[in-house]
């Protein structure tokens, strides 16, 4: 199995930051109302259930990776399904990653256009985001992982800001607990998959992790951190908003930030929306990086070509999805896809991997080695 050169590898505990940073993104500002819709005031239980299921999926995901020595999902696909079927699976996955990248870009553009600049055109905004992203992706996975780490360090304090909502909190709104049917709560958990998705990136960064045996631990810690933050935001939203009010609030997290005041800053949400770029940028970087790797594996062309292609795709499509309604429709379609790909797929894949590698696990070394990358 080809190990990447040591200078491109990073310590395993950065997996925690990568997993956490890619999960936290455009989902968190407004997931509350989608979960509230089916699950009502038990939405927080849905969040916990979704968190648990993300742990289960991640467990299988890392188990699959540990069956191989140092492979990413693209190599595993080709090993499992053979050359052509594997290529087809890779093509689908690459398209999924590029779409995830696009979803993040347009949702953040939508947030900026709603909260800061109604007249800012989508094209210019996506150009700005992509310009920064391309510069980062060209730096390779180490730079991207570093950016994820720094973005968490610089924005973690925002999770504590819900303290400002304290005078408006009504604990009664959480009760009675389990007032909804289990199916409703499970439906809420399914809707959460959009917010918690992203940890499938471990499939691709795994070859670059130094102490691979610790990947499992740090993946779970990252998932736990995300689950806790989502839970916090969900619970505070439930306490802060009345149900019907929450249903009318498109970005509950940002609306809660509206109440925050500092002596030097009257309206925190303006800062929060801008700062959110630090939070979504690692997502764009990671998804773009993973998708251009898929592109190179599929076509054998340089990753630069992949970058240009993904950028053109995002730029072109961001002009199509300009209204809230269309973006919402796309989000709900993506929600279904991501539920399958991030949550179900690793569990479905695991028996197959067991079957393929059952006799001599070391034979997986026959998987063709990836060409030495230029951009990573």
């Amino acid at each position, binding site marked *: 199995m080809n190990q990447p050169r040591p200078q491109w590898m990073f310590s395993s505990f950065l997996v925690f930051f990568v997993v956490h940073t890619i999960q936290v993104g455009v989902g968190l500002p407004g997931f509350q109302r989608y979960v509230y819709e089916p699950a009502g005031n038990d939405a927080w239980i849905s969040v916990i259930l979704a968190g648990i299921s993300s742990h289960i999926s991640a467990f299988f995901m890392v188990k699959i990776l540990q069956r191989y020595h140092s492979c990413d999902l693209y190599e595993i696909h080709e090993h499992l399904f053979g050359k052509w079927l594997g290529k087809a699976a890779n093509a689908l996955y690459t398209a999924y990653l590029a779409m995830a990248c696009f979803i993040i870009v347009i949702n953040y553009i939508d947030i900026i256009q709603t909260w800061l*600049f109604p007249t800012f*055109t989508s094209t210019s905004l996506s*150009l700005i985001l992509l*310009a920064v992203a391309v510069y980062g992706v060209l730096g390779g996975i180490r730079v991207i992982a570093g950016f994820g780490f720094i973005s968490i360090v610089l924005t973690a304090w925002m999770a504590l800001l819900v303290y400002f909502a304290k005078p*408006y909190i009504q604990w009664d709104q*959480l009760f*009675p607990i389990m007032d909804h049917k289990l199916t409703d709560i499970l439906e809420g958990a399914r809707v959460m998959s959009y917010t918690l998705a992203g940890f499938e990136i471990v499939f691709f960064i795994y070859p670059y992790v130094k102490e691979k045996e610790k990947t499992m631990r740090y993946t779970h810690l990252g998932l736990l951190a995300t689950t806790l933050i989502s839970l916090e935001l969900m619970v505070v939203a439930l306490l*802060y908003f009345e149900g019907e*009010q929450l249903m009318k609030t498109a970005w509950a997290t940002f609306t809660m930030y509206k109440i925050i005041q500092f002596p030097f800053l009257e309206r925190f949400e303006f800062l929060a929306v801008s700062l959110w770029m630090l939070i979504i940028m690692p997502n764009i970087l990671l998804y773009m990086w993973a998708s251009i790797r898929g592109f190179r594996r599929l076509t054998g062309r340089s990753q630069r070509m992949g970058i240009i292609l993904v950028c053109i795709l995002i730029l072109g499509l961001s002009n199509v999805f300009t209204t809230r309604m269309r973006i919402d429709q796309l989000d709900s379609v993506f929600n279904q896809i991501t539920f399958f790909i991030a949550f179900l797929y690793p569990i479905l894949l695991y028996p197959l991997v067991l079957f393929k590698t059952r006799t001599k696990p070391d034979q997986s070394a026959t998987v063709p080695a990836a060409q030495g990358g230029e951009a990573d």
Partner: protein
Amino acid sequence: MTSRSRLFRLTAVFLTIPLLCACVRGVPIEKMGLIVAVGYDYLPNHKIMGTTTLYQIDPNAKEKVTVLSNTAYTSKGSRNKMNQESSVTLVSGQLRVALYDEKLARQGILNLVDTLARDKDIGSGVYINIAKGRALGILSHRYPEIGNIGTFLYNQNEQNITGEQIISSTLHDFLHDYYAPGQDPAVPCVTRVDNEVHLDEIALFQGDRMVTKIPSRSSFFLKLLRGRFHAGMIELAVDLDGLEAQQKRKGESKHTHSVIDNISSKTKIRLKGQNPPRFHIQVDMYARLQEITSEIELSKPEQVKKLEVQLAKSITNEIENLIRTIQKYNVDPAGFGQKYKASVRGSNLTKDKWRKMFPKAQFQTDVKLTLVRTGVTD
């Protein structure tokens, strides 16, 4: 070197394209008319009259405040018309106070409040007030001692809310209480008395329609019932029964007045029965005696105990009075319905259901008051 210079060129191209093609028009702050307060008045034929107060930015201007007003069918429509009267673009990002006149409020103001919440420029900390008389009369009056009536109202609200003197009625509070099935908004009223502005009453809403007003001291008890209460001052009439009051003047009634300062309190409202709903209200209060009009021997512990009992009794009476009032008007600013909803499984409580249940509800109030200290002297 070639790969690096190619990379450099690529980045440069990516950075200059957005620079060339995108520019958001920004208006410098001094070119904008910053609205501090808006007021809406009732006009017949579904029309409203909007009044806005702006910051006066020219330091040399005589007046410290600019007031514009206009009539239209919607609030945004009136703002558009005002824009035509003004030399600067009117913007609402610095809005602090919204006033609605009583007549308008009795018709329902949800649309007007909702448009504030919908506007991304407006914060959710904007104070909602009801204007007794016309909002125009309050906003356009020339006060000799008030520079800008908008900022004055904002400071007045803020000061009284942080001092726990009146009920908090921010935009968020209003909408929250409106949407909550078991709760109704309560909003302070503003009156102009000659050249002064007073916050003296609390308007109680049924849904988004104002129903009645209660005196502003009732907000102490309302806040006690809402349970979000830290510190506040209240003047109470105390029955002197059983207290050894000295120097009792002849012909004086058996009452004395005392002021207590609520240090901390805990209110527990429990639902005891469902049909009709029966609530048990338990208030535990720690207070500080600020002033008392009769001289009572406070160094004697049993006297203090008795005073505590009498004060508690007086608070119980006031709470019960308040509950009677709100039941009479069938409004629930204290949020008993929320307690009901939280305690009853599968209630599916709606506003209509609660309106039918609330007047029949029964209440039992227990107040326990502890005087923590009586000042530096006994």
